[in-house]
């Protein structure tokens, strides 16, 4: 058996040698035969001829010998590939159109899939991620914590609210009590950190991690070491670990970074190591904290929620918790084990809540339930932001690929018609139909593979564009999209599938040939008019491109509506940036004095017309929001009583150009010593005071202090969260009366922006050289960022819709041209019998229009059924917007008419005599 295998392998890999030996062996046989014939007295020629005759066909013998050696399938595949490549090279026009079409389709799919892969599929790069579980909790009742930082979302199935964070005592309890988890570890994001390296100040992102974080995840350092439980002790020296990304961008991959000291919020920290590139540093996919510090170091540099005294209180919930399952343990077992302790700790925290922190309705509360879910893909929040938009994008690119397939199928159909003669000859010579189909499919898969290869390159280039997409306005996705084996597998599968998809039907119809008429070259016999398959392809293409174009139309109108929406303030020539002096130790009045000093300096900068500051920038979905109460009025419902508090400098309305409608604006005299005042917007005036004039009325942000603040003026509504939202209730408070949590400066500029920014940095340095200026943006840029998702949708559906339209019209044109060419004889006959050119024109156009109309009707129906799934992404336009539907339908009809007109005119120009003689 072994020798047998050797023979076969030799036949496969040393093909030329084996063939030569076969030749030689048969030649030897023929010579012996010839000799024998000579010996019998034949003439030399006769002898050789007789030998050949008795031998039978030499080639047939060779063929049968080859069969015996096996691996025939591979040999034929190789033959088919070479033949296919020759056929493709022979028709460079067809080939390049098809490959390019496929490359666009497959490339778009690959690029989107690489994003899906990154965000939705890829697991955290840690040891055995499938063992990780994420702990969180859910409740249907009131919250039981005193304060919380983290996220609260809604569980889609139940509508219950899900919270991400636990108190530190709850985490410690999990860690000490569990028998089902081998590791329990915690982390918490830090707000912006002021980092000073070698005298240069800047802002970095960071997180606190418990000592068991890296050992529990099994993350090995790229350089130096990672944090250990020993670092997470109150007495330990403060240390930090850098993310790879930060190491590269800030330290240029310098390996000597270990041991260096950096200053974070004024506290010196020693860098002990760097995490590897595949590990983003944190657990949220797409975000990458620059610095990781032990939890114990938190209170020293973060005076907020993790502040010294409150960090370990059971009512202060701020750490997120992950665990690693012991082998064979289910998530449910973990939940059952830990839930009781968690609820006990929550209850104790609630009972220990200091009176100052108790809400008005302080009383017994329902206990939250513990949830334990798979943590293998990191935290789910980013995923939720992306999942639905990504699904829409996948559908869009999938549709484009379908159209591309339909188009190539159509091209192949017409080409198969041209090759009918060749195929008939091969069938007549005894080729089996299956064999021919296999050969034709090899050709189309080869085409698809070429398309996929080019598409891969396109995707490689396009994926960086995709990363600039910010679907949630949360900032750029920090991830490198890797073209890994999964993406490669996806592309390969798509190529194979498309090759078979567009190749199979043409191959089947090409090999269904009646031999005799075709071989006799009787054009009227076997060739019908348009095949039904070709027609349905055209109809499908028109329908799908209509669907995409309607989507594009809706998204483009949405984008346009959002861009031209009345913002309520003037966003032009407005420069925004942030400065945060608190981490450097500025406190209370010092902060206010510093801000006033800066505003004065900014106003002196050439090119700056005016300067102001507020707590938050507009259109960034960030702010300070809570219920407000009006003295002497019943409280509004929970849905109505929320008000954004925008703490701002007295000249805020002048600089932002928000018009005052009633009362007065702020003055510099509205300071900390003066009575508390507010200017409110129209929405708040309407909701809280109805028809009455609010000026002179009083309200407050605590139920028992409804008379705390006097309304002195009303300003026009300005968009607050983003361009697409209805303006919420906003109360503007003069900032010296309430301290700012952060500050955003706003400068109305007139000169060159670059010079202004440089001068601003200089001005800040003069005040305090260690204060970084960050988040420098113009208001227009911010508004644009808020429209990132809309722009991407409009752009992608627009581009792909046009591509689809182009493909569909090429398809229609091709099919109609083919139909006209096929019917030249018939048209000539009709004209000879007296049909006018106009009649012929109308008839051909009529046929094309008929197909188009069917396509349009199907496409419109599909669009009506499907656009409601994108309602939540639209703005100022209904998902069934009649103008969009009508305009797109008309556009398609016109394009289809043009695509039919050219072949129709060719038909009408047919010379009857030539056409009849054509036979």
């Amino acid at each position: 058996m072994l020798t047998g295998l050797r023979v076969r392998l030799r036949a496969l890999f040393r093909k030329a040698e084996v063939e030569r030996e076969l030749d030689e062996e048969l030649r030897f046989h023929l010579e012996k035969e010839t000799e024998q014939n000579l010996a019998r007295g034949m003439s030399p020629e006769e002898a050789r001829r007789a030998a050949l005759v008795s031998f039978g066909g030499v080639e047939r013998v060779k063929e049968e010998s080859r069969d015996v050696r096996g691996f025939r399938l591979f040999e034929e595949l190789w033959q088919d590939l070479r033949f296919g490549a020759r056929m493709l090279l022979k028709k460079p026009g067809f080939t390049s159109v098809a490959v390019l079409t496929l490359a666009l389709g497959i490339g778009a799919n690959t690029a989107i899939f690489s994003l899906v892969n990154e965000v939705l599929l890829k697991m955290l790069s840690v040891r055995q991620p499938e063992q990780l579980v994420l702990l969180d909790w859910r409740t249907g009742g009131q919250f039981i914590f005193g304060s919380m930082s983290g996220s609260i979302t809604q569980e889609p199935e139940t509508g219950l609210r899900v919270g991400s964070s636990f108190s530190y005592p709850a985490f410690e309890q999990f860690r000490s009590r569990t028998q089902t988890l081998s590791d329990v570890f915690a982390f918490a994001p830090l707000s912006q950190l002021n980092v000073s390296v070698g005298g240069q100040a800047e802002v970095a992102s960071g997180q606190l991690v418990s000592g068991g974080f890296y050992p529990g995840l099994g993350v090995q350092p790229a350089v130096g070491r990672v944090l250990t439980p020993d670092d997470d002790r109150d007495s330990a020296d403060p240390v930090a670990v850098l993310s790879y990304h930060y190491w590269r961008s800030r330290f240029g991959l310098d390996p000597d970074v270990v041991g260096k000291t950096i200053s974070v919020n004024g506290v010196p920290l020693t860098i002990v190591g760097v995490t590897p590139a595949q590990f983003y540093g944190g657990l949220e996919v797409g975000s990458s904290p620059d610095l990781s510090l032990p939890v114990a170091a938190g209170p020293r540099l973060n005076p907020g929620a993790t502040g010294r005294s409150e960090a370990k209180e059971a009512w202060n919930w701020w750490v997120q918790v992950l665990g690693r399952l012991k082998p064979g343990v289910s998530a449910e077992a973990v939940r059952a084990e830990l839930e009781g302790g968690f609820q006990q700790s929550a209850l104790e925290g609630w009972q220990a809540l200091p009176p100052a922190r108790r809400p008005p309705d302080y009383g017994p509360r329902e206990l939250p339930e513990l949830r334990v879910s798979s943590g293998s893909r990191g935290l789910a929040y980013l995923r939720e932001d992306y999942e639905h938009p990504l699904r829409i994008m996948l559908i869009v690119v999938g549709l484009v690929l379908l159209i591309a397939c339909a188009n190539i199928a159509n091209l192949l159909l017409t080409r198969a018609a041209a090759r009918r003669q060749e195929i008939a000859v091969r069938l007549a010579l005894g080729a089996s139909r299956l064999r021919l189909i296999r050969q034709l499919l090899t050709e189309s898969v080869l085409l698809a593979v070429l398309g996929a290869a080019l598409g891969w390159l396109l995707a490689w280039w396009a994926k960086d564009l995709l990363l600039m997409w910010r679907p949630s306005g949360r900032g750029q996705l920090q991830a490198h999209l890797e073209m890994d084996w999964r993406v490669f597998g996806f592309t390969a599968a798509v190529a194979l599938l498309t090759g078979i998809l567009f190749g199979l039907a043409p191959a089947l119809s090409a090999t269904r040939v009646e031999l005799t008429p075709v071989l006799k070259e009787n054009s009227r016999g076997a060739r019908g008019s348009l095949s039904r398959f070709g027609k349905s392809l055209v109809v499908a293409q028109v329908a799908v491109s209509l669907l995409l174009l309607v989507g594009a139309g809706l998204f483009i109108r949405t984008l346009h509506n959002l861009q031209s929406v009345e913002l309520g303030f003037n966003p032009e020539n407005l420069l925004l940036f942030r400065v945060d002096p608190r981490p450097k130790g500025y406190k209370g009045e010092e902060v206010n004095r510093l801000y006033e000093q800066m505003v004065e300096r900014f106003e002196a900068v050439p090119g700056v017309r005016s300067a102001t500051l507020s707590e938050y920038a507009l259109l960034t979905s960030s702010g300070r929001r809570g219920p407000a109460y009006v003295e002497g009025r019943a409280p509004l419902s929970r849905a109505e009583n929320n008000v954004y508090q925008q703490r701002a400098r007295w000249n805020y309305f002048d600089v932002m150009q928000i018009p005052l409608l009633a009362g007065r604006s702020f003055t510099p005299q509205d300071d900390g010593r003066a009575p508390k005042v507010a200017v409110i917007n129209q929405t708040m005036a309407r909701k809280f005071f109805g028809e009455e004039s609010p000026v002179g009325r009083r309200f407050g942000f605590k139920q028992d202090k409804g008379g705390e603040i006097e309304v002195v003026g009303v300003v026009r509504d300005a968009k607050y969260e983003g361009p697409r939202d209805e303006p919420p209730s906003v109360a503007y408070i003069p900032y010296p009366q309430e301290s700012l949590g952060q500050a955003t400066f706003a400068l109305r500029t007139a000169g060159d922006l670059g010079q202004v920014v440089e001068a601003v940095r200089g001005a800040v340095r003069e005040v305090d050289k260690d204060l970084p200026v960050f988040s420098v943006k113009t208001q227009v840029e911010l508004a644009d960022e808020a429209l990132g998702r809309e722009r991407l949708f409009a752009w992608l559906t627009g581009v792909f819709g046009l591509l689809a339209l182009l493909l569909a019209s090429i398809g229609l044109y091709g099919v109609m041209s083919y139909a006209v060419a096929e019917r030249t004889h018939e048209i000539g006959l009709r004209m000879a019998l007296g049909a006018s050119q106009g009649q012929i024109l109308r008839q051909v156009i009529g046929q094309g229009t008929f197909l188009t109309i069917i396509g349009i009707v199907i496409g419109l129906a599909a669009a009506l059924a499907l656009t409601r799934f994108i309602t939540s992404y639209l703005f100022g336009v209904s998902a069934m917007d009649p103008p969009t539907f009508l305009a797109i339908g008309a556009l398609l009809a016109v394009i289809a008419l043009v695509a039919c007109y050219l072949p129709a005119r060719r038909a009408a120009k047919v010379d009857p005599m030539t056409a009849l003689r054509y036979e």
Partner: protein
Amino acid sequence: MDLLQGTLDLLVLKTLQAGPTHGWDIAQRIQQVSRDVLRVGQGSLYPALHRLEAQGWIISEWGASDNNRRAKFYRLTAAGRKQLAAETESWQRFTGAVELILKTN
């Protein structure tokens, strides 16, 4: 006379039992030994040889023929000998059985 399906393998193996030889010689010997009754269509001889080789029953090597020309010689392997014995036995049982039937009236 045409060969019965499947008998060619047996005849080739049997012929090679006498010693290694080349394809032409195998055809000649079958013809001579059967006194011209059995003629091996050369068109089926070589596919059969290659099939037997692929199954590992014979192996081939290049050698010099009578007047020093290169020719491909086939030789039985151990597996081929076993196969020959098995096929001979089953052939004899088959012909014996046919004989028995033909002898009855």
